[in-house]
């Protein structure tokens, strides 16, 4: 690959490998950059360093439930959201009724996970731009969420908590108070983040007008999630294609405004995430109020999962965008095919389009602002 | 032997040795770094002559400024960013003729000069004298050089902005 590029450019330009071992490629992404000085003339993402054959592996499982821990490992930063899509797909295939209490707990967990994921994404983004302290402040907050998760699920990162039409275990009695306490302490931290990073002039200089993703390009590349909303498109599957019980809650879809630069630049994408955390807090508060105290979360779990012959596509809103599961069943105990449409993969594909002509330093900002997780890109 | 004498020979050796390396090195960047040692050696010799202002100027202007420009020039104009900046020998015969002629001239001048060897020069405040000279007797040439440099800077800015404007238009 390297030779091909250097032949194309006639050795006039420098080819540089950003990654797979580079401090700011968020895992093992390898970017081939063709540079003219420090200006990027060509980008080629090379992926596959973390490929684990998730989709093929799912086919040879002898049980649909055994796939759930593997979905965790796609986007390991937001494992709950990955499970959520998969169990919803199975529930729709089996036409199962999910108990209300389960739905409420799921929504609370999913929104908490969204906050945790955004905290990591924003922190790592700041880190890419040289701001070290916000990263650790946000990590402290993320730790608190993980502590709550650990009490509920027993694990800190890869939970395997959602089951088909149920949960693997019931929440502990203090769950509500713990979560409410977190919501209360977390609100001021967002303001602190805005003081320290979001509205810092240097940060704005590094992110405004950089990596501009116009609305049209975003739609053409099938972008979703904060990346699409950063370009000003009001599209959120929780509102536009409601699943679970999201239609019960009152929340807004934050979109990019071009407040400090062009619409759809890195800062907009960043800010959408910050605002989304506030909205998630709102959802959590409402869900905590509405959550029934009584009810067995495990009673509706079917003993055997044998969907009828057929196929289904279910999309859910993960912190990174639209996560779709396409499942084909052939009536056997194992899925005939599981295909995951991973938002990070889609977003990575538009990297060459938005980063051409920018500097290496901007490249880092752009990669950080689309917030990819390589476990999901490679699956 | 006096300490200063030892130092003099040491710095002279550094100066000459690195000059030889600079001339004969095949790698341009190596030549440039050898030039750095030469210039530093000369600066050290200035210090031994109590010309401290001159020595500092030598460092600031030649080592800190011109040499860096040379390095930038070498690295930006050559093909690719590798260690292999090779020099090739061209015009071997005329070049050697000219250098031999120059060497003969220098040696002749060196031998025919009537050198006066004085005691150790007195250490004076060179900065004050220099300032008085530049702002007094030589004020006109000083200002003329200043104006010339200003014109050169303006010209350079003009050229580079036009170039970048054309580039922008093309892309």
């Amino acid at each position, binding site marked *: 690959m390297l030779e091909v590029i250097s032949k194309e450019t006639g050795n006039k330009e420098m080819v540089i490998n950003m990654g797979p071992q580079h401090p700011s490629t968020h895992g093992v992404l390898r970017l081939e950059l063709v540079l003219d000085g420090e200006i990027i003339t060509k980008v080629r993402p090379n992926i596959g360093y973390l490929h684990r054959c998730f989709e093929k592996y799912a086919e040879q499982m002898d049980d649909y439930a055994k796939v759930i821990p593997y979905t965790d490992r796609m986007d390991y930063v937001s494992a709950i959201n990955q499970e959520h899509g998969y169990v919803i797909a199975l529930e729709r295939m089996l036409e199962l009724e999910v108990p209300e209490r389960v739905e409420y707990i799921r929504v609370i967990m999913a929104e908490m996970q969204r906050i945790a994921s955004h905290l990591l994404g924003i922190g790592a983004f700041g880190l890419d731009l040289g701001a070290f302290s916000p990263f650790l402040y946000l990590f402290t907050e993320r730790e608190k969420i993980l502590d709550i998760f650990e009490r509920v699920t027993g694990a800190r990162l890869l939970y395997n908590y959602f089951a088909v039409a149920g949960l693997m275990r019931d929440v502990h009695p203090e769950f509500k108070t713990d979560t409410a306490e977190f919501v209360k302490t977390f609100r001021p931290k967002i303001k602190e983040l805005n003081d320290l990073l979001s509205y810092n002039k240097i940060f704005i200089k590094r992110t405004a007008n950089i990596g501009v993703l116009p609305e049209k390009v975003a739609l053409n590349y099938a972008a979703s999630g904060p990346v699409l909303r950063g370009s000003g498109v009001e599209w959120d599957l929780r509102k536009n294609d409601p699943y679970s019980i999201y239609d019960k809650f009152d929340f807004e879809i934050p979109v990019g405004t071009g407040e400090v630069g062009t619409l759809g630049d890195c800062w907009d994408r960043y800010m959408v995430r910050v605002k989304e955390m506030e909205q998630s807090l709102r959802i959590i508060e409402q869900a905590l109020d509405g959550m029934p105290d009584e009810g067995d979360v495990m009673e509706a779990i079917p003993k055997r999962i044998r969907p009828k012959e057929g196929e289904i596509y279910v999309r859910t809103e993960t912190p990174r965008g639209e996560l779709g599961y396409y499942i084909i069943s052939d009536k056997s105990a194992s899925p005939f095919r599981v295909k995951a449409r991973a938002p990070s993969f889609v977003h990575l594909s538009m990297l060459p389009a938005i980063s051409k002509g920018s500097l290496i330093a901007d490249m880092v900002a752009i990669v950080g602002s689309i917030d990819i997780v390589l476990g999901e890109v490679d699956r | 032997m006096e300490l200063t004498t030892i130092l003099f020979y040491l710095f002279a050796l550094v100066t000459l040795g690195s000059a030889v390396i600079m001339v004969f090195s095949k*790698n341009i960047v190596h030549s440039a770094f050898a030039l750095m040692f030469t210039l530093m050696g000369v600066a050290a010799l200035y210090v031994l002559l109590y010309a401290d202002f001159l020595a500092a100027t030598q460092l600031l202007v030649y080592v*800190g400024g011109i040499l860096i420009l040379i390095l930038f020039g070498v690295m930006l104009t050559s093909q690719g960013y590798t260690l292999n900046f090779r020099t090739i020998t061209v015009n071997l015969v005329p070049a050697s003729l000219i250098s031999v002629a120059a060497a003969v001239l220098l040696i002749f001048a060196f031998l025919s000069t009537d050198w006066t060897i004085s005691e150790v020069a007195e250490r004076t405040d060179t900065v004050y004298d220099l300032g008085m000279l530049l702002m007094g007797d030589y004020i006109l040439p000083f200002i003329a050089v200043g104006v010339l440099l200003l014109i050169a800077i303006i010209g350079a800015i003009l050229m580079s902005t036009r170039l970048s404007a054309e580039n922008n238009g093309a892309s």
Partner: protein
Amino acid sequence: MTEYVSHIHPVAAILVHAAIPLTIILVYALVAIWGERKIAGFIQDRLGPMRVGGWHGWAQSIADLLKLIQKEDIIPTDASRFLFKFAPFMMFAASYAAFAVIPFSSAYVGSMVNIGVFYLLAVTSLLTLSIIMAGWASNNKWSLLGGMRSAAQMVSYEVPTIASVLTVVLVAGSLNLMTVTEMQSGNDILGFLPNWFIFQNPFLIVAFIIFFISILAESHRVPFDLPESESELVAGYQTEYSGMRWAMFMLAEYADMLLLSLLGATLFFGGWNSPFGDFMAGPLWGFFWFMLKGLSLVIVMMWIRWTLPRYRVDQLMHICWSILIPLSFVNLVLTALWEVIF
């Protein structure tokens, strides 16, 4: 003390003179590296090093040093061996040599030359060259980019640094740092403020701001730490270095930081002068005050480092060429006018 030694042997006197700043640098570097990690830790709600040496891990730097000494000496196969080995030493030599003209106390300055400030600026320009040398000799693209960047950055920021230093020189009328310091003794301004240059003239406050921004860039500190910005250029010109050579870079970098901070303390904050006039004055107290002022600037630099993100390379150049340089020259002219009028 130095006079006493010079009676014994002139070479011994020179060595003693040279050893004093070296000791200061080495002790400072050990403390500062540990201190920086502690400051970073506390700012980030952490504790920083805690293990080595008992109280708050004070011996961490020493342990690191011992580890670095034992490390395998790695030179990349295709590196230019001599330059690769030479660069760290040249970098340290450049910052160390500049300490010769810093008046540490009323009783001690390495060399009483009349061109003190000028010499200091000239010698530190060698730092640029050693960085290019390290970047090029490593034969690594990231190193080269880092080296070129830092060279451009340092050459550019030398101009506002010099211009703001010149502002002080203009007011003081001397290039000798000892003389400059002596001019700032006494507490006359408004009856109680010390006669430091920063209080003497409003334009010198502007000059100090320019100077401080410039030394942040000169010593590669955030928000101008582009040469070694780890998220873009891995580690810049230091990428291929390890073990003791890397330690030399680290040492030189911290020495550079101290050097420029001490220069700032000398030029703007009265050097070794006590802030309380004759109270707590004297050679040893002078040393204490001087280091206190210098280290305060160093601590502010660290505080800034752990707060801000970094600029991009073109923004850095923009700040230098279209803000700091014009501003510093205008400031220079205005200071001259002020001096003429008052």
